[in-house]
């Protein structure tokens, strides 16, 4: 009887998978990636190429965005061997790497020519490191951008009328106050909406709000956006944060009538058609297929700044000579990791290093003919920014590619860039923020009330997860000494 069971088990488990000299024949990798065309589609042709070269097979497991973190976490906690490669956000490292669910990859990365780690922009490296070890190999590096409608901005009639009304020339907004004025002007004077931003619950709304909050509070240290690094007191309801949310609430009036339903998908469908004067999004708008884009419309730039910043330590506003413009690495950027449960770690890393390699990755970060969608991967290697030819081969006009890359690089290489939250519970903290922000946008609470409530919830989450430990990890994630 026992023998039969053992035999069955042996059959069920199959022959041990060992890569042959040629590659990984017989190996099947399970790759978890977000559902929809933005992330899965662009890498599919290259994954197929890898399959042919190595003889392995790859099975795509597509998961809806809001469920990726919960699904992966529950499978990790249940110790089920579900995935060999997971495409995740560094925001989740605190929970995933912090609890030992991911394989540290430093050894494999070191000396792997295809990964070519030094070619990756330093900012895009750092976010993938947790407590000194690297768990994610980037396929993307995220930064929030601001867009303006070139056609409207270059119209002499509007330029004149705008200057007359507001007392300064019309141009890409340098401050959030200007952004507001421009949105107001165009929503009143033209058919176009003033601005488009993600405002729907459980989409990208909290990232939009955070990118607006960053310049109001950031003094270039990194902790100002989330918690006091001495005792984990939430800073999210500071006057700076509240002011930023008030700005955002004001935009509801100047946006399209259904702006509260907007997520970046709507923005990408509508902004390139010239339906709005301004928009906020990742660098993705630039990547929308040309046949659905009016190239004359899209102008890129860093997100606006503010004239005065709120100083948490002094507890007061500080006036500035130059606008404080701090880019925000919303979501930090997608990358590939390997769960410790994977029985095929060697093949998994081979696939990852193939995808992230300069040669392959430049093709999908510059892809422009993605079905019905912008590509979800943005350039993250120095070579991506230098190799303009690769971009023109993908169908970009040289000038536009240059401007796009220039503006993106400027954001990523700014003196200071605010990284996203990465400590354990980040998903829950940010979900609470998302609830607060959407509730303020819908007018159910004032921004102050909403953010006070978020701060209260953040305290509860911190207490539940252990304040001391959270504080230690928060400091570590910022590179502050214990």
């Amino acid at each position, binding site marked *: 009887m026992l023998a039969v069971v053992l035999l069955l088990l042996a059959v069920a488990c199959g022959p041990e998978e060992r890569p042959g000299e040629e590659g990984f024949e017989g190996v099947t990798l399970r790759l978890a990636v977000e559902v*929809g065309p933005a992330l899965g589609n662009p890498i599919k042709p290259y994954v197929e190429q890898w399959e042919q070269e190595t003889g392995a097979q790859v099975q795509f497991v597509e998961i*809806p*965005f809001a469920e990726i973190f919960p699904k992966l976490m529950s499978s990790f*906690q*249940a110790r*089920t061997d579900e995935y060999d490669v997971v495409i995740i956000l560094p925001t989740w490292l605190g929970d995933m790497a912090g609890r030992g669910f991911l394989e540290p990859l430093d050894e494999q990365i070191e000396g792997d020519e295809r990964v070519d780690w030094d070619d990756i922009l330093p900012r895009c490296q750092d976010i993938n490191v947790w407590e000194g070890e690297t768990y994610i190999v980037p396929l993307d590096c995220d930064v929030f951008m601001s867009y303006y409608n070139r056609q409207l901005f270059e119209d002499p009639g509007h330029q004149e009328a705008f200057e007359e009304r507001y007392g300064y020339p019309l141009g890409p907004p340098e401050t959030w106050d200007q952004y507001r004025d421009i949105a107001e002007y165009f929503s009143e004077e033209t058919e176009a909406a003033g601005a488009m931003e993600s405002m729907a619950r459980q989409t990208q709304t909290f990232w939009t709000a955070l990118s607006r909050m960053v310049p109001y509070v950031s003094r270039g240290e990194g902790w100002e956006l989330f918690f006091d690094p001495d005792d984990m007191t939430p800073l999210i309801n500071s006057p700076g944060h509240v002011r930023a949310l008030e700005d955002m609430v004001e935009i509801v009036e100047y946006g399209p009538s259904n702006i509260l339903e907007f997520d*970046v998908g709507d923005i990408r469908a*509508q902004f390139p058609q010239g339906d709005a004067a301004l928009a906020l999004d990742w660098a993705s708008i630039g990547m929308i297929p040309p046949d659905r884009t009016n190239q004359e419309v899209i102008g890129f730039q860093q997100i606006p700044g503010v004239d005065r910043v709120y100083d948490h330590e002094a507890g007061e506003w500080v006036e500035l000579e130059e606008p404080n413009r701090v880019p925000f690495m919303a979501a930090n950027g997608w990358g590939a990791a390997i769960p410790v449960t994977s029985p095929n770690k060697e093949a998994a890393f081979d696939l990852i290093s193939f995808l992230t390699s300069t040669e392959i990755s430049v093709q999908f970060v510059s892809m422009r003919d993605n079905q019905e969608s912008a590509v979800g991967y943005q350039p993250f290697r120095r070579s991506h920014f230098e190799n303009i030819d690769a971009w023109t081969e993908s169908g970009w006009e040289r000038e536009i590619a240059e401007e796009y890359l220039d503006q993106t690089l400027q954001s990523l290489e700014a003196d200071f860039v605010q990284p996203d939250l990465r400590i354990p519970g980040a998903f829950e903290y940010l979900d609470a923020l998302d609830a607060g922000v959407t509730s303020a946008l819908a007018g159910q609470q004032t921004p102050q009330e909403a953010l006070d409530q978020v701060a209260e919830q953040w305290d509860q989450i911190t207490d539940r997860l252990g304040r001391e430990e959270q504080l230690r990890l928060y400091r570590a994630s910022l590179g502050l000494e214990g």
Partner: protein
Amino acid sequence: MVHASRSLRWFVSGFLLFWAFVVLFPLYWTFTISLKDSAGIFGGASFIPWVDFEPTLDAWRRVFLQPGGTLLSLSNSAIIGVISAAFATITGGLAGYGLSRFRYKFGPLRNRDIAFWILSQRMLPPVVVVLPLFVMFSTVGLIDSRFGMILLYTMFNLPIAAWLMYQYFTQIPLDLDEAARIDGATDLQVFRHVALPLARPGLVATFIVSLVFAWNEFLFALIFTFSQARTMPILVAGQATQHGPQWWDIAVMALITVAPLVLITALLGRRLLGDILAGWGK
């Protein structure tokens, strides 16, 4: 028909027609969306293919060609649904037969107590049991497996199946059982050769009801499936992406999910109605 004035009759006909429209419109509208691309959807409402918009089969092609996705979920839903409905019908049938034929006494519990206990399990909100079940299933490796889902759905449908079969068996006269027993048949033989054939319509109805519930179930599938055992409702619910919903694809998936149910209703709706008219409405 009880005194109905002419105008009342018109009102009744009109209202029924209106309700038929309300029932059918969402299906039709979804169908038109499935034939549109993003320009067709965002470019204002349009209702009739070829007349006010140019239909495309892109979304249908995309959804079916996606490796792993739709076809896997469709087969998961079918396999899990059919097998769990069969299990529920069998276990429910046995219990229903037992309760209708024998007098049980477990301590203070008698037949009706047992029957209520079984039925009451259907009222228990699933969310009350999922957390420990998740821990249990992960310990024994049943997370994200078809077998695990079959077990869950058998449990989920068992109370209703047992109750329905109990009702059917009670309607079958005892005399037939007795006659068979006098001829020396055992209980199990009586069940198989006398009761089951007579209860066939009940078995079919119970199976269909269980199948529909299993096909439509959401919460268990949301929690207990990740990829290998993912069922259609979860595939459909999971179409919200970080980059905005792909309405055209969602429309196709929603239609695929409900198509078998529309078919079942068209083929068996009258029969199901007949069953309800015959007994359940009392």
